[in-house]
């Protein structure tokens, strides 16, 4: 999902002290555990591990590791997680990629979490950068940018592409009103999602009333919002992060614009921010009520951490479980895991992987094929599945 090309959007939220300590302990523990060598299989995890959604990601991944080891590990070898904090920063992600590809213990990577870091580091994981020899299977968790589709044979992702999600969101929007204003954050994520939404909407007979870019430094959205008021816009699609969306919705309510808001999975965190955002429609990579497996994961997660899982945790959980299945089937080698992912759900390959986020098999670009993408409504501080929004 997230696209943050920089960590700024998230760093505004202070990290709970307890979470930080737990994280430090987890990092320390796995750092001590990985020196063992022969008896262990090592997966790396890369993401902004000090952000809230990074913490969720690591919790989901560690829950999966725990379950794998409780079920005999990988051919009686302990599965070990090697977490790397990329801070959602492209340059850090590139440095981490170079380090992991050179590390012979690491046989696969769960992550990165963001689209920007996934795209920036992919040439290294695919062995296309001249400076680093070798390749490493890269299974991104919540990277949704359409650009992740064409990065190479060693790059896969759990989340469906924005271009696929945008089709579901556009169809939901069109059912409400044919005329929609689009606001997007002016980066690869925002442009990709907004463009796919606009194309799907127009193709389905809808009309784009406005197509307005904003940036991280945009504080005042009133010119756009007042123009929408003037033009009588009823529905606004926001392709951006929850922080910007929160400012937009607050300013709209302040100006008396009564339009409804719809957005991608980036808007999910609005759920806990108060009544202002009631009725906002959000795309969901994961919903606990979506399937039996989703419910089972939610239960296990709640048991382990005393909280409900978010899509980040679910995607990371699925990523580690899928990599473990690959290592069991083809042996814990980089080539074996890559071959498993490459043929998953196809003739001669393993059957589709049944994860908490849905059934996963990959198309030729490493994108999950025909994966469910749900639309939810923020209702009374929770997210309810929007009826008819799921494909």
């Amino acid at each position, binding site marked *: 999902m997230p696209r943050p090309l920089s960590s700024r959007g998230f760093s505004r939220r202070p990290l709970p002290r307890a979470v930080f300590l737990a994280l430090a302990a987890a990092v320390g523990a796995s750092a001590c555990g990985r020196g063992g060598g022969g008896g262990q299989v090592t997966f790396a995890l890369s993401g902004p591990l000090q952000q809230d959604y990074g913490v969720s990601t690591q919790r989901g991944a560690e829950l999966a590791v725990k379950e794998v080891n409780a079920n005999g590990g990988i051919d009686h070898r302990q599965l070990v997680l090697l977490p790397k904090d990329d801070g959602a920063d492209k340059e850090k992600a590139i440095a981490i990629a170079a380090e992991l590809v050179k590390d012979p213990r690491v046989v696969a990577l769960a992550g990165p979490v963001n689209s920007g870091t996934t795209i920036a580091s992919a040439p290294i994981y695919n062995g296309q950068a001249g400076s680093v020899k070798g390749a490493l299977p890269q299974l991104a968790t919540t990277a949704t940018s359409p*650009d992740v589709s064409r990065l190479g044979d060693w790059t896969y992702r759990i989340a469906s592409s924005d271009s696929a999600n945008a089709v579901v969101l556009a169809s939901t929007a069109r059912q409400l009103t044919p005329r929609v204003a689009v606001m997007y954050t*002016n*980066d*690869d994520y925002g*442009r990709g999602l907004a*463009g796919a939404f606009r194309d799907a909407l127009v193709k389905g007979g809808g009309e784009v009333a406005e*197509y*307005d*870019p*904003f*940036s991280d*430094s*945009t504080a*005042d959205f009133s*010119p*756009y919002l*007042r*123009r929408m008021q*003037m033009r009588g816009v009823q529905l606004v699609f926001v392709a951006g992060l929850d922080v910007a969306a929160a400012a937009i919705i607050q300013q709209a309510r302040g100006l008396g614009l009564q339009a409804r808001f719809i957005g991608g999975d980036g808007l999910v965190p609005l759920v806990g921010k108060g009544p202002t955002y009631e009725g906002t429609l959000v795309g969901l990579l994961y919903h606990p009520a979506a399937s039996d497996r989703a419910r089972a994961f939610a239960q296990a997660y709640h048991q382990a951490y005393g909280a409900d899982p978010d899509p980040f945790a679910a995607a990371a959980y699925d990523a580690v479980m899928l990599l473990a299945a690959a290592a069991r089937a083809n042996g814990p080698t980089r080539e074996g895991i890559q071959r498993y992912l490459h043929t998953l759900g196809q003739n001669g390959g393993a059957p589709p992987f049944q994860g908490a986020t849905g059934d996963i098999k990959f198309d030729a670009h490493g994108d999950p094929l025909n994966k469910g993408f749900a639309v939810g409504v923020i209702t009374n501080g929770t997210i309810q599945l929007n009826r008819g929004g799921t494909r």
Partner: protein
Amino acid sequence: MSIREARTGFFQSIRDRLTYGGAFLVFLILALALGSLWTVSRLTGRMDERLGSLRRTTEIGSSLESLILNQIASGERYLVSPSPQIAQQFADFGRQSHEQRRQYKDLKDLTPAEQQEIVKVEGLHSRIEVEYALAHAQRDIGDQAGALARVAAIRPQTQELQQEISKISAAQAEKVAVASTQLKTQARTTEIVLAIIGIVAAAIAAALVFSTIRGITRPLHELVTAADRLGQGDLRVSLNGNMTGEFASLAGAFSGMAVQLRNIVGETVSTAERIGTFASDLSSISEEVAASSGEVATAMVGIASGAETQSQGLQATQEALDEMKARAQEISNASRMVVTLTGQIFEVATRSRQEVSTALARLVEIRDVVQASANQVTELEQTSLQIDRFVETITGIARQTNLLALNAAIEAARAGEHGRGFAVVAEEVRKLAEGLARAAQEVAQNVHAIRSRIEGVVGTMGRGQEKVADVEHVSKGADAALEQILAAVDGVRMAAGQVEDAVQRNGAAMEGVEMAVAEVSGTSESHAASAEEVSAAAEEQSAATQEMSASSMELLHAAERMRELVSGFQT
């Protein structure tokens, strides 16, 4: 005479050495030629690739620049006279420039400087685009002053964006420099490898020629010495040492021939000695006969002394004659044996001559192989001339590229400020062309060096041919020596024939003596009185014995001559 068996293995014979060594040499020289061709073509390919990538970056870079500037222009226009068309233009230019920038980021071999620039450009462009979009919204809701103030505030960023875009050109220039350095390094590495191959080829050629000459000269010298000694009649010829290939079989034939000649000559000498002994025995018996004949004549005077005495004398004569006959038979056998032996000598000598002829034929083959190798090397020389022509073509292309780059520089100068970036690129293209011309020149020099080495090899092979001709000459000398031996053997055979003749004539004379004795014996008893008759018969007998004595002498002489002939050989 002992010859060590030639060791088995590929390079023992001169023919093998020349064939395999020459083939390897040809392979190395071919590798050298192909290596040069490959280097030139690879350098050309690399240059095409680099130039193509440069062209793509330049195209995308300039298209990105014009799209961004166009978008800002239409953003300004909208503020003056808003219309849906201009708004659409603004959005389209924006979308296209984002697309171009993404393509730029996808280009391979971007330098860190370029990557940094493109990230900076992306940040600035996104912000400027947002500000213009907000200004348009302000204009749409009637806040014209606010819109203009917003655009004025973003102007420093707009200027900065233009500067950053121009920095991308500078990054391209840096890339050209890096590419040209890499090409130079690659060219140098390949040159060193080719030079090493060249040196190895020259060393192998030298080793081949040296070992071949050595392999011919030493055995040749031994053979010459041995043939000379054989010609002088010394049959103790011994060919020692390690002979290679063809020389080993030649020396083997030579040694075998000498051994057999020595055996035969030894046997002939002992036979001649025996004949000599027989002849002197015969001579002394003849003298005895002559003496007894004299006695008969004397007895004739006192014939009356009785038939008893006469009869005894006759009997003694008869016995002596019998012994003489037996001896004559022995001589006859001995001389027949000589004839048989000389026949064998003749046969052996003839066979040796055939072997020498075979060896000679092999030498001619060697000469042909050397000739063929020389021809192949000459063909290589032709091939290197073709490489020369290819290098000329490359030089021509480089010159052409240089001219084009100059023209481009002139055009760029004419374009003024906008052409500045392109002028830098044109200058670098020109430098690359110069680099290529230099590389081609170096390849041409290498090829010249290779050709002079090939000429050296041709000269060396010529000298090898002369050596082979020497070998041929010596073999012919051996042939002539054998011919002399054959003539000597013929002389022996003739001498043996003469002995046989003498023995036969001796036999005839003896028969005459026998008849005369029989006559004497027949008449002595009944015609004791016919003393004249007896006297005449005795005279007749005396003449016959003298004749026999003479033929005995002749036989002795013949045996002596045979011994002389044979004693010419040292066994």
